[in-house]
């Protein structure tokens, strides 16, 4: 690369300062809602009603968090969000695990065990990424009813696995397309079959793309509201639906501080997943995109 002409020292510093100012402004703008939520979730209700949304709490209290977690009125039961948090976990963990595992297997077969028509199959699976949620609601409800999984956590797991398969297959296929075929041949010569090649050679090298897929699936499934609202009953309702019920329950006063605390609680798991494994996310996406 040729050296570009540098502006003089003074102008350079000024430009840089302006750049940072703009960036900080945007960062503040984006973080403002989070700030409002956090600040108001530790205020008393009186303070929220009487004061400024943006001000720091005069009297710091964890009460709204405890209420949101274990005492708040959800629908007709005063259980708080905790049982629904458990519901969400019971739904997300198997759904993410199964859809990721199947996606990896699909990607492996579609790139390393090619068969006539594999491109058409992959094309059809890609198509699944473009189908809007709303279109599948009624057919899916019928299917769940027919196989006896309507209104259960297992039913929700099935829905999310089926819906996520297109994405997970796409991720793994692109990643494995860049994986050298010679390694597969070498494994064949060494006597490894279909499964052992997969588990011993491919999977151990799939760290980044597994992280990408898990984050993607976890975020989507955890945040999903429509499927949860459509296919779950009171016992299997996920966190998002419960949060909605908490906020829209019309018994007496609107407890904004509890609502804010509940909303943060609902968003916390995805936030943690991003913070812990976010750097792999970008790395994995790049790996698939550049070479695929």
């Amino acid at each position, binding site marked *: 690369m040729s050296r570009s002409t540098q502006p003089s020292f003074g102008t350079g510093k000024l430009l840089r300062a302006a750049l940072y100012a703009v960036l900080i402004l945007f960062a503040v703008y984006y973080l403002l809602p989070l700030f409002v939520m956090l600040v108001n979730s530790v205020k008393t209700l009186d303070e929220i009603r009487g004061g400024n949304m943006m001000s720091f709490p005069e009297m710091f209290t964890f009460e709204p968090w405890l209420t949101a977690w274990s005492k708040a009125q959800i629908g007709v039961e005063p259980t708080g969000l905790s049982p629904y948090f458990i519901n969400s976990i019971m739904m997300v963990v198997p759904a993410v695990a199964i859809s990721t595992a199947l996606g990896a297997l699909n990607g492996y077969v579609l790139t390393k065990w090619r068969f006539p028509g594999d491109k058409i199959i992959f094309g059809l699976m890609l198509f699944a990424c473009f189908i809007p949620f709303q279109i599948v609601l009624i057919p899916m409800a019928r299917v769940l009813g027919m196989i006896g999984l309507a209104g259960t956590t297992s039913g929700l797991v099935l829905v999310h696995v089926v819906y996520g398969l297109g994405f997970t297959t796409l991720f793994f296929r692109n990643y494995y397309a860049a994986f050298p075929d010679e390694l597969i041949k070498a494994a064949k010569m060494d*006597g490894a079959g279909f499964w052992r090649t997969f588990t011993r050679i491919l999977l151990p090298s799939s760290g980044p793309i597994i992280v990408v897929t898990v984050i993607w699936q976890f975020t989507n499934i955890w945040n999903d509201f429509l499927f949860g609202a459509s296919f779950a009953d009171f016992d299997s309702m996920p966190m998002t639906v419960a949060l909605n019920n908490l906020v829209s329950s019309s018994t007496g006063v609107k407890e904004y501080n509890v609502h804010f605390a509940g909303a943060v609680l609902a968003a916390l798991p995805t936030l943690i997943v991003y913070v812990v494994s976010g750097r792999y996310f970008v790395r994995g996406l790049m790996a698939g995109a550049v070479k695929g």
Partner: protein
Amino acid sequence: MSFLQIDKVCKSFGPIKVLRDITLDVEEGGFLVLVGPSGCGKSTLLNTIAGLEKLTTGEIRIAGNVIDDLPPSERNIAMVFQSYALYPNMNVGQNIAFGLEMRGMPKDERDAKVAEVAKTLQIEHLLDRKPGQLSGGQRQRVAMGRALVRNPQLFLFDEPLSNLDAKLRVDMRTEIKRMHQTFGTTIVYVTHDQIEAMTLGTRIAVLKDGIVQQYGTPAEIYNDPANLFVADFMGSPAMNLIPATVRGSAVEMARAGEEPLVLEFQHLPADVRARDGQEVIVGIRPEAITDADNRALVRDGQQAVSASCRIDVVEPAGADIFAITSLGGKEVVTRLHQDWSGQANSHAELVFNLEKVVFFDPESGVRLR
């Protein structure tokens, strides 16, 4: 009885015929090199021997047993790949042991075997490293170790040197040859590099468009090419292929602005004599045309004639000087002694070693004998 027999093997991918009726055999302990330009089917042939590709018709036998229906792992064949294909997630020791592990060998036995092979290849200090931490030459050694440890009856090499830089390539070539001499295992080796083919092989098969052009020893391939393709492909600088006209027992090559060059032969091949007055292609290697003082390139008793030729370009190459003249409208490379003192754009006395001249049919490219 030969050890590896490739018998009338054909392979098609849909309508495309990649291998056509290939028949080759190698004796036990032999070193067969498959050489040809890219797309000639040499790697496909190697893959069919390995069992990674099914052949369409024909048969492959090892020690008399047909192996066509055996999966790759049961053929007792080891393969070294172009990229070395070392498993990136395993360390060197695990890479070498993987094939043994898949065959269910107990761990202590595996470790002993790995240690033995590592010692032979002098890679003991690398056993705990990952492939990503190795240099090109070390990777190649590990790949050979992975092949050696299984003690296979046949080794396959798929262009193993093409990823190395020029100097290392020469070193590793020697290493492969030494390994072959030490272990005596039969080897089939694919390359597009004709020098590798010449230096390594005990037998060379030159392929083009899925057809074996010539099969023989390196000396046969080099001195006695079966057709124009083999003559042109093998040897560097390439053989000079000069259009010429047959005149009785002599051949005549046109020269721009000069009298034609006439080479008088004592024994012109019968096919050539029969073409009196017609055109043929004269094939003569650069080292068979030299300066008058360079007697080293013409052995006693070989028929040589000298002629004055105009030198267009002089290219000193250290050990030799390559001088380029023009005959029959073609640039002709000659190999002169390093102390030759002639100049470009002047005439010099050149000696033609007529024993080394071969003739081809200009239309079909077939050798005239």
